């Protein structure tokens, strides 16, 4: 028995070192991380590299929608209103990423607090807290968000708040499971024996230990949020002009699919690449941290 506990302690303490090593060995994850880094950099610097503004209509073109060309400076072409697609795609990526990160942050904060408290306290408190999660889970997610956007108008803040408000449910369940397992560990008993209050134990002893799992699921939540926001934009409920997002661009491009295919292909490719890379990275993180989750 001493042997097995020794092994788990080694992995726990050396967790981040081991995980970093395992991650570095995972080529797909490294490639994905690099890809994401490139896309983020492009999103931030792209609009600065091009002479065009995001809503500038280039009247010199005829027709207004022109395919990608190095000659006239519209490297990704223009949309049906003559606006430069290169700048719009990267601006849209910025918005999509911002929404995804903020919404994920909201769900992480609420989900971790809820799940860690429920898992640690256990018993009836746990029962009630998780029943609440079950009930909220049953709500039709889509209707809820749509109703919110109709009632409060379509501001950017509202979108990520709405997405985050529903996204915390899965995070809470996952964290609660981890907290339940951690509660049995001897260092929690030792902390209780030293008279530390419950909120202190949850905050300093339980939550940092679930961070590994939280990071993995947060990384996998980001692409889900991007996709959801894209879907909202596709329905016309997402971000409003002159702001744009990858979803809006895809929606607009789909309308012109036959005559101006680049308008769909460019934002769709960026979106697909981003989602793929995020999923690969999330998988890689999960594998890297896995031995500890076991």
């Amino acid at each position: 028995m001493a042997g097995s506990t020794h092994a788990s302690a080694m992995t726990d303490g050396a967790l981040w070192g081991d995980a970093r090593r395992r991650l570095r060995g995972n080529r797909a994850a490294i490639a994905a991380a690099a890809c994401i880094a490139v896309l983020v950099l492009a999103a931030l610097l792209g609009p600065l590299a091009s002479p065009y503004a995001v809503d500038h209509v280039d009247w010199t073109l005829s027709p207004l929608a022109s395919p990608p060309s190095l000659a006239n400076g519209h490297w990704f072409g223009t949309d049906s209103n003559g606006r430069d697609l290169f700048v719009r795609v990267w601006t849209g990526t910025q918005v999509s990423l911002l929404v995804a990160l903020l919404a994920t942050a909201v769900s992480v904060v609420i989900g971790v607090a809820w799940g860690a408290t429920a898992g640690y306290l256990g018993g009836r408190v746990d029962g009630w807290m998780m029943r609440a999660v079950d009930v909220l889970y049953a709500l039709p997610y889509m209707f809820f968000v749509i109703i919110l956007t109709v009632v409060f108008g379509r501001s950017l803040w509202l979108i990520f708040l709405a997405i985050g408000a529903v996204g915390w449910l899965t995070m809470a369940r996952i964290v609660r499971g981890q907290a339940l397992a951690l509660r049995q560990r001897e260092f929690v008993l030792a902390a209780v024996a030293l008279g530390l209050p419950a909120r202190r134990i949850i905050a300093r002893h339980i939550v940092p230990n679930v961070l590994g799992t939280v990071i993995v699921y947060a990384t996998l939540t980001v692409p889900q949020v991007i996709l959801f926001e894209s879907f909202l934009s596709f329905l016309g409920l997402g971000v409003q002009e002159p702001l744009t997002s990858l979803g809006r661009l895809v929606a607009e491009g789909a309308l012109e699919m036959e005559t101006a295919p680049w308008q769909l292909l460019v934002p769709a490719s960026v979106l697909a690449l981003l989602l793929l890379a995020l999923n690969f990275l999330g998988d890689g993180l999960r594998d890297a941290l896995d031995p500890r989750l076991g």
Partner: protein
Amino acid sequence: MASDALFEVRDLGVCFTTPRGRVSAVREISLEVRRGECLAVVGESGSGKSQLFLGCLGLLAAGGLVEGSARFDGQELLGPDAGPRRAALGTRLAMVFQDPMNALTPHLTIGRQLAEVVLERGLLDAATARARSLEVLRSVGMPDPEARLRQYPHELSGGQRQRAAIAMALMTRPDLLVADEPTTALDVTVQAQVIDVLRGARDRGLAVVLITHDMGVVAGIADRVAVMYAGRIVETAPARELFAAPAHPYTAALLASVPRLDTPLAARLAGIEGQPPAPGAEPDGCAFAPRCPSALETCHRSRPPLESLGARSVACHAVRLAPGAGP
């Protein structure tokens, strides 16, 4: 004698609600610990010695119930008012657990874990907490204390971890330390060092309850010994008298089963035939009777009460304490 007692347990019982009904881990325990003394509680695995103290401190797992009285410095810990227990636990009364690998939080540095005990309760400010941490680490014989503060548990050896765990318990300068098998998970040379640490703390006035199944460890530090079998105390005595002249047959068998350096290699290890009864399946009469070489007819029928004479007490039909027994 009773007015001197720092920690007094009267008629304590611990039971657990299981799907099979209520199962007793510990029954009718009465003992006391005086200031500055080391009481060793000895017994096999499953004798209930850990549950006894977990129950007193209110640390039982779910489904555990404790009845009886446990008084610390005159205040009842198990009463309807949880105030005295919450006030005492972690400040004047501390507990150290068996496995040092798991008792320390893996992702916090030693320094933070030590300081947490005093900072969380507002007992000291950060600078004083750090000074106290260093002082306590030095008192437990930790090499290079300044470096340890910044290290994580996995960077320490097993013996150092146990010392850190003991140091954490000593941060608030408690009056009583309950050490639950602190040496079991360590190798022999490190065991000796940890016992030295506990002995040093005892010599400085700390009362220690040492829960163990290792008689060698008991010999190294205990002032008094309580022997437990099947959830009950069967003998208590000053340590020297217990080793010199054990009264209860179980104690005698325990001492006889410890291998000695001068035993010839080819000789068989002396054990005790049979198994202790499972909780909930204790026989009528004395629980040790089925395995006892001195068992009488009456032992199988009626359970012997714990009888005291002077500093010793024993629960056995076959043995009578005589005044002045022992060297």
